[in-house]
């Protein structure tokens, strides 16, 4: 009997097998190629040397989960695993049963469990290849004690929730469901906050031991003893409350049909209070954080948030893919180095770094315009390639122009920020931890930029970008000059990047060309896409989250993590994000609609691709 004719249980077919197997081998390949020590030049090395590392089977399991997930999604979409009509029940009690009995969720759990055992067995049987082999029991122990388990839980939770949610949507009428009631929303919020507290480092339990959750335990770090646990729970509740508020007022608005300015969901006073609250938290909270969070905010998040909100103007607002973004960052950094006298060539006068900022803005902006004018007539992929080339040119130049930049060996120290007025002398310290002065400086640059860009997006300019992104031909027919607006977006993005470059060089002092390599451009693109193109809040959240991931991996140095490995983890995260939330963590409203339009076959949400073309009929 051939594989095609065979009857499979549970409505599976050979395509499902193919999917699962592909994903399994994908995970295996990923594990082999990207082990702690391995890279593409020594395939198999990681596998031989660290078969007992949770790293390897972590990725095998990731592949398997992905396979199982694709199968489940496929089946649910095809309706194979739909609940029979008789099970779509109306009473509350039975609804809860549908919630817990959701078929795909169970299958998913079973598949995940089998995958786990299989991965451990594979690890066990290949054990003899390595010198100090662990027994199956030891492997199991190590696995349970490793964080992989935690990540799987994190990955599984949204899956199950999503599956259940799609089921509920289909099986119950929209009104009157307890799952859409306000009480339920608050409960969801609280549970969400609790889950977040659970996973939020550094109070993440090193192991998911139940003893960790006991009240009144010996350690001050016990989960329920830590104030942040309650903070997050309250935060979840508040978020849920706000959601309800917005939703209710939406309904009321729809009923009364009164005129409102588009995009003004919350009243100005509420918004002001919200902004002030955010600012207050941003100023006050870091003081009370521990070393991990301080260094996370200080080392990582600040500069990258700045880079990401700048790139968001280019990618999110104007819909142009810029892969050479780091070039402007380098320009800003080297402008600072030049004017503070750190380069072999000397400036006519040495400037305080504060005065370098406007110069760097102008330099980066000019570079953006010069690059943009000839290239922005190109579209989509071509633009990406040209900007990529530009980034590489700048990189090669600063690596090799030894007489100007000191070449690949790096240069420095570039001047830091300082105030030298009669009576006032203050220099921002570049200490690595424990000193938040640069954080506040960054905040001082970031907050105004956030406000400026928000009002830019809600203005004539922002709407013109949206129009060009959606339909360039129609936008042109209204008298909008696409080239002008594209160059404008490019220049604004570039100047933000230039500011980030000055800040970063002032903080670090030393400049190395390797800091301005292509990876950084790609990383910033990931930040923007992950957070939600076009949404400033989304980009903030995305940049903060992914940088936290990086910092988390470094700080905990589990499974032999090395910095270069981070892209591997970002890859995995991005895959998950693209499956579940292609519009990003906190997408902009316009973008969500564009994605919906695309699913309905109307136009292209992929602003990075070509715009709607074709005859002007």
């Amino acid at each position: 009997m051939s594989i095609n004719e065979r009857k499979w249980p549970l409505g599976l077919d050979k395509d499902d097998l193919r999917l699962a197997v592909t994903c399994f081998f994908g995970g295996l390949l990923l594990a082999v190629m990207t082990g702690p020590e391995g890279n593409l030049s020594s395939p198999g090395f990681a596998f031989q040397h660290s078969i007992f590392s949770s790293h390897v089977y972590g990725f095998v399991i990731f592949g398997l989960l992905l396979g199982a997930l694709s199968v489940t999604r496929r089946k649910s979409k095809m309706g194979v695993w739909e609940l029979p009509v008789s099970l779509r029940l109306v009473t509350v009690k039975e609804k809860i049963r549908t919630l817990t009995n959701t078929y795909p969720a169970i299958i998913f759990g079973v598949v995940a469990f089998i995958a786990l055992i299989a991965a451990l067995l594979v690890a066990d049987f290949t054990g003899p290849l390595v010198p100090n082999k662990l027994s199956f029991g030891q492997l199991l122990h190590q696995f349970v004690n490793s964080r992989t388990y935690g990540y799987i839980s994190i990955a599984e939770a949204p899956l199950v929730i999503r599956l259940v949610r799609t089921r509920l949507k289909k099986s119950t009428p929209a009104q009157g469901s307890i799952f859409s009631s306000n009480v339920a929303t608050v409960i969801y919020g609280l549970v969400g906050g609790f889950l977040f507290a659970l996973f939020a480092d550094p109070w993440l339990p090193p192991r998911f031991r139940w003893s960790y959750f006991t009240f009144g335990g010996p350690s001050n770090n016990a989960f329920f003893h830590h104030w942040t646990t309650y903070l997050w729970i309250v935060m979840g509740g508040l978020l849920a409350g706000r959601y309800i508020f917005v939703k209710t007022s939406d309904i009321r608005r729809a009923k009364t049909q009164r005129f409102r300015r588009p995009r003004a969901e919350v009243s100005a006073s509420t918004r002001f209070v919200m902004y002030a609250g955010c600012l207050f938290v941003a100023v006050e909270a870091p003081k009370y954080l521990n070393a991990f969070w301080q260094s996370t905010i200080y080392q990582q998040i600040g500069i990258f948030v700045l880079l990401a909100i700048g790139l968001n103007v280019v990618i999110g607002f104007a819909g142009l893919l810029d892969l050479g973004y780091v070039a402007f960052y380098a320009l800003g950094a080297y402008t600072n180095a030049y004017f503070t006298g750190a380069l072999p060539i000397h400036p006519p006068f040495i400037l305080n770094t504060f005065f370098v900022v406007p110069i760097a803005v102008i330099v980066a902006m000019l570079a953006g315009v010069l690059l943009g004018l000839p290239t922005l007539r190109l579209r989509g992929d071509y633009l990406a390639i040209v900007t990529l080339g530009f980034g590489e040119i700048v990189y090669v130049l600063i690596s090799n122009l030894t007489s100007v930049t000191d070449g690949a060996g790096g240069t420095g120290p570039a001047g830091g920020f300082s105030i030298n007025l009669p009576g006032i002398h203050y220099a921002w310290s570049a200490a690595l931890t424990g000193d938040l002065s640069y954080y506040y400086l960054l905040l001082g640059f970031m907050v105004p930029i956030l406000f400026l860009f928000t009002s830019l997006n809600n203005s004539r300019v922002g709407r013109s970008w949206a129009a060009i992104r959606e339909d360039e031909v129609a936008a042109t027919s209204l008298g909008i000059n696409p080239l002008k607006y594209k160059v404008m977006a490019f220049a604004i993005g570039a100047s933000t990047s230039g500011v980030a470059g000055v800040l970063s060089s002032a903080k670090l002092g030393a400049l190395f060309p390797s800091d301005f390599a292509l990876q950084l451009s790609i990383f910033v693109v990931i930040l923007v896409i992950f957070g939600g193109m076009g949404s400033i809040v989304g980009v903030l959240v995305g940049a903060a989250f992914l940088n936290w991931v990086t910092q988390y991996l470094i700080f905990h140095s589990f499974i032999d993590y090395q910095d270069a490995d981070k892209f591997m983890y970002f890859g995995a995260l991005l895959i998950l994000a693209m499956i579940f939330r292609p519009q990003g963590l906190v997408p902009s409203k316009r973008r969500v609609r564009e994605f919906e339009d695309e699913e309905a076959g109307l136009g292209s949400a992929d602003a990075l691709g070509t715009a709607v073309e074709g005859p002007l009929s």
Partner: protein
Amino acid sequence: MSTDDLIFDVRDVTLRFGGVTSLNNVSIQQSRGEILAVIGPNGAGKTSLFNCLTGVYTPQVGEIIFHPSQDQSVSIMGRLPHKVTQAGVARTFQTSRMFNALTTFENVKIGVEARHKTGPIGAMLHLPRRNREERESDQRTLELLAFVGLEHRMNTLADSLPYGDRRRLEIARALGTNPKVLLLDEPAAGTNPSEKLELTDLIRRINQEMGVSILLIEHDMRLVMSLAERLYVLNFGEVIATGPPKEIQENPAVITAYLGTTETEGVSG
């Protein structure tokens, strides 16, 4: 027709794509305030003509002069489409080209504020001009939406509008650019009879109340005959007849072009 107050003066325009001649020696004159229709069978070159008039295509031969007012003249030849719009020529498209993810209000507002001056700096810093222009464009947008009868749909997304409403929205958006002449490319395509009546009324009101000249491509003969003061008939890229609707209906060349009674008429170009 008075020849001294033309709004569009198209002289001997020839447009070729490689070996295909899309327009051959086409001359069209439109007087200020006139509703003019261009009709013809499929592939006759009507939309190509529109694209020439809006600067999307540049004809190889000929001259297109647009007179925004009696003593001004602008050559459309070689002018970029957005410049043509800024000069006072607005258009709609044969297939609806809305900004689908934006609301009705935003769609029209983009049209209205395209001729405003606020730049990125003003927008970022909320300078006085920005605030004034926002107010102006909000108000103008509301007026236009009320004019076309879509004010109750203000916050609806463009792609969830019914087809007839989408047509009206597109017209409102084009009117937002404050045109002297409005080019409508098959505005009634795909609309039902009652929507057609409303549309006829709307086009007449645009012409009379706003004083905008209308250049119309349309297949629906009843609509054309009731609206247009004068018609041009295009066939295979050439003007085969011109005149008031009554004359055109009886013109033998037009009847031949539409019904195709003879096979001997070769493809021109």
